[in-house]
């Protein structure tokens, strides 16, 4: 599987990853070789085989809708890179600010 540099750049954009030019070069090569290996799957006839997303035989686990205490705000904010007393702080997201 040959990936072009612009394919790799597109995937990096989708993944929200800023990559240096040498990282893009290396990933172009390495993703190509990993996808080549993965092509082995095409040997397998999977006609009519139900996909298996999970090994646990459980579906839609519900609990009773009972209110319980949540994480205190101070603890929730304690690991934030930037926070006020009440909020997570992020850069402006509207144009023209």
């Amino acid at each position: 599987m040959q990936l072009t540099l612009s394919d790799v750049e597109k995937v990096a954009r989708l993944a929200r990853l800023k990559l240096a030019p040498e990282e893009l070069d290396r990933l172009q090569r390495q993703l190509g070789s990993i996808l080549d290996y993965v092509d082995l799957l095409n040997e397998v006839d999977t006609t009519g085989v139900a996909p298996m997303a999970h090994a646990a035989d459980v579906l839609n686990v519900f609990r009773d809708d009972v209110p319980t205490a949540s994480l205190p705000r101070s603890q929730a904010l304690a690991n934030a890179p930037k926070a006020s007393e009440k909020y997570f702080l992020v850069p402006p997201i509207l144009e023209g600010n």
Partner: protein
Amino acid sequence: MSLMDLSACELLQKFHSREASALEITQDALSRIQSRDSQVQAFLSRDEEGALAAAARIDRKRESGEPLGRLAGLPVAIKDNICVQGWKATCASRMLESFSPPYHAHVTERLQAEDAVLIGRTNLDEFAMGSSCENSAVQLTYNPWNLQCSPGGSSGGSAAAVAAGMTPLALGSDTGGSIRQPASFCGIVGLKPTYGRISRYGLIAFASSLDQIGPFSRTVSDAALMLDVLSGHDRRDSTSMNLPPAEAHRTIDSPVPGLKIGVLSTPLVVGADSEVEASVSAALQMYQNELGATLQEIQLPNLKYGIAAYYVIAPSEASSNLARYDGVHYGHRASSFSNLTEMYEASRGEGFGDEVKRRIMIGTYTLSSGYYDAYYLKAMQVRRLIADDFTRAFEQVDVIITPTSPSPAFQTGALKDDPVRMYLEDAYTVPVNLAGLPAISIPCGLTKAGLPIGLQLIAPAYQEERLLQAARMFEQATAWHQQRPATF
């Protein structure tokens, strides 16, 4: 002779017979770490103060005759992707280098409820992605049997800590072999329970349909003890099976009568290490000739596609799970950016290392529009065929035995620039995660160069008791688990 040369069960006897206090046991573990970890580098941090305080509390309980937990006074090291309130949990990543979880994982709650002593955080491949610990953003860890070699990964720090006699017990997590392969490389016991047997609450997610927590120990009996304590239903993990906790320790010394062992008719790895092959054959002969087992060749035709399916499914799930690291709620935030999107991109670009980026990129590609059917859907179908292969095989046999890893520990750096070759190291362990089955690695030999060789036993889902009994039969008949690294 140090207390740290004893197994967990032996230490418990010493503690209950008052030959040793929890404080003495903990001090012994800490002094071993002090004298040995500068060479091994298994620990990212240790909690001397917390461990000594916990040990003193447990000793006071013993003195006052209060009921004691099943792990009373036993040191346990924790892989650094499992949350312990009051500690950091970094996943050996720059992304989480200053993250302190606000709650305990289910397993750390269980350990503390049973009076274990948590001694420190151990190294891993960043976000548990790797087979060597070389992907840690913090440090390399070295194999206690040969300091030039890797301890394996991703739970290499926990495995090396147990193998070097710095703790009798440790926790790891296993997504594609990350408990069993380092246990094999380090000559100890590593158990990956059935998917859903142990709650993943508080385990930092890598690939949620594959991740499972499990113990490291030097004996099978110790692994049974840990499984009993860690297993059981937890409503905070919706994939936790609603079953009573395991009771493996009670039955551990009963051999499985007429044990039927399945052996793959064709090896999964062509050109595997000849010493590994010879040791596994010798182990099978022992089961047959001395332990009353019968061997049966079985066909598992789809297992050879395990690695290919895994390297679509695991990165796909990882790319989704790791999308949460956006520099907003917790984790690394870049200092220089001009808008929100750039903040995401720069924070993630700076916070993640090479292997994590590689897997996020593969997963993003295989899940992206136009490629989903060809890769992700196809891989999930092959996963079903692999699980069906195991189901059919277990109609004929009680356990399946394979090598844990096709080769013994490799030299640090040897496979660093060859991701596909590194991935193939997991050929025997990955199919087990895809099918969600329990499996264990136990020591079964040493190479001429003095490196451990691991034997993998696989059982049907929720049959940990049988799995551990079958492993214990071998352990009782051999002395491989008593071998210790010559380095120390």
